[in-house]
């Protein structure tokens, strides 16, 4: 550390200590409690408003449906009117948003750094990692260690919550290690972690893979896939988003994104 760095560190700590002496922790805790109470109150009010609005919409929709039915019942049958029996409508109603699992994956990304490509929906953001994965930090996901594909609502206050996203990490399998040993080492970490859940054999781009739905403190619907191709190992994770007022990303969509992968390692 240079003199300048030491001076800086001392100055910062001195100033921070001065501030610390003046902090009234009890007052701040009480203040936070009051603000959280207000937050809870606002949330209850918002929910009530939404519930009332939904009820009004239902009543209005019911009224419209009743009028349409009533008008149809009073319409006289003319000579050109068909009298065929009704058949079930196999077409989805227009104006309804496509189900998440049906959203087309229109964008394709090819990673030369991590040796794979995958498809993802329009409007999703992509943050490729700036440099190859550094294995000691292997399982800490961040924009510095993983390619991130995320629905725009996954970003809050500039902070990525990971919900509604797929991340991809890969590394060359270390010399002297077989593919199976690499997979075992990764699965060993998962087994000891909080995401332990039954895993199942599958394949990604024709390569044998392990995929697991996470449980415990990991979110329901999370998926984690481990796969190797040639001399490269990959960990792909998908995190659903279930915030109805923002967006919903289902596990089925995450699985389709993972299934679209081509591994070029």
């Amino acid at each position, binding site marked *: 550390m240079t*003199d*300048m*760095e*030491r*001076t*800086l*560190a*001392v*100055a*910062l*700590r*001195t*100033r*921070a200590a001065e*501030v*610390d002496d*003046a*902090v009234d*922790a009890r007052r*701040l*805790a009480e203040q*936070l*409690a009051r*603000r*959280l109470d207000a*937050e*809870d109150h606002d949330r209850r009010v918002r929910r009530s408003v939404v519930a009332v609005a939904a009820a009004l919409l239902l009543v209005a929709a019911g009224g419209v449906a009743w009028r349409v039915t009533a008008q149809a019942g009073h319409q006289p049958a003319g000579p050109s009117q068909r009298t065929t029996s009704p058949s079930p409508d196999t077409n989805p109603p227009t104006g309804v948003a496509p189900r998440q699992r049906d959203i087309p994956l229109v964008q394709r990304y090819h990673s030369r750094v991590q040796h794979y490509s995958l498809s993802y929906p329009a409007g999703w953001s992509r943050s490729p990692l*700036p*440099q190859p994965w*550094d294995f000691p*930090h292997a*399982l*800490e*996901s*961040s*924009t*510095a260690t993983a390619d991130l594909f995320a629905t725009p609502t*996954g970003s*809050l*206050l*500039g*902070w*990525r*919550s*990971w*919900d509604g996203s797929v*991340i991809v990490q890969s590394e060359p399998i270390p010399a002297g290690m077989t593919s199976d040993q690499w997979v075992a080492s990764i699965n060993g*970490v*998962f087994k*000891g*972690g*909080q*995401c332990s859940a039954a895993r199942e054999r599958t394949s990604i781009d024709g390569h044998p893979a392990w995929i697991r739905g996470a449980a415990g*403190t*990991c*979110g329901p619907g999370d998926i*984690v896939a481990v796969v190797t191709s040639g001399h490269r190992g990959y*960990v792909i*994770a998908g995190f659903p988003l*279930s915030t109805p007022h923002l967006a919903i990303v289902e596990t089925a969509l995450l699985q389709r994104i993972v299934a679209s992968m081509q591994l070029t390692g």
Partner: protein
Amino acid sequence: VRAVPAIDVPALPTDRRAAVTALFHAHNRALVRLASLLVDDRETAEDVVQEAFISLYRHWTGIRDPGAALGYLRAATLNLSRSRIRRRRRELSLVPSELQPVAAADVSALTRDATDEVMRVLATLPRRQREVVVLRYYDDLSEAEIATTLGISPGSVKQHAHRALTALSQRLEAST
């Protein structure tokens, strides 16, 4: 930062309110100190940190382990400090005051004036450089951790730190 498989992390209370309160008791002071180095006064720093905790409370469904929560709080504190500074500059049209001469700082025991001077010069640095320096030399974060917190690459962190230190040295020397 959310670790894909959260490994050996102490569990938080399952209740959102209890979890946020526990995090508050554990990290409030440290975050207020951090914010105070960015916004320059304690009251604003306290307010910024309160807002960061409220924001965490609102977005709790996206946070699933203590490591991620602390990362969120740190990033929110930085973002909110930044917007406070912007707002304050807009309101008061603040221009960094002209530097006053100061004696060369004694590393082992900085005088009050020297500390003030370093902090004043620090306040004249571009926002990103200042954040990097505070996270590095006050919070003792690694380059990788700073990169994650600020959402920039480790290379950028290195660049900002280097430029900040060069500017600080030059400005402090010029004022002596």
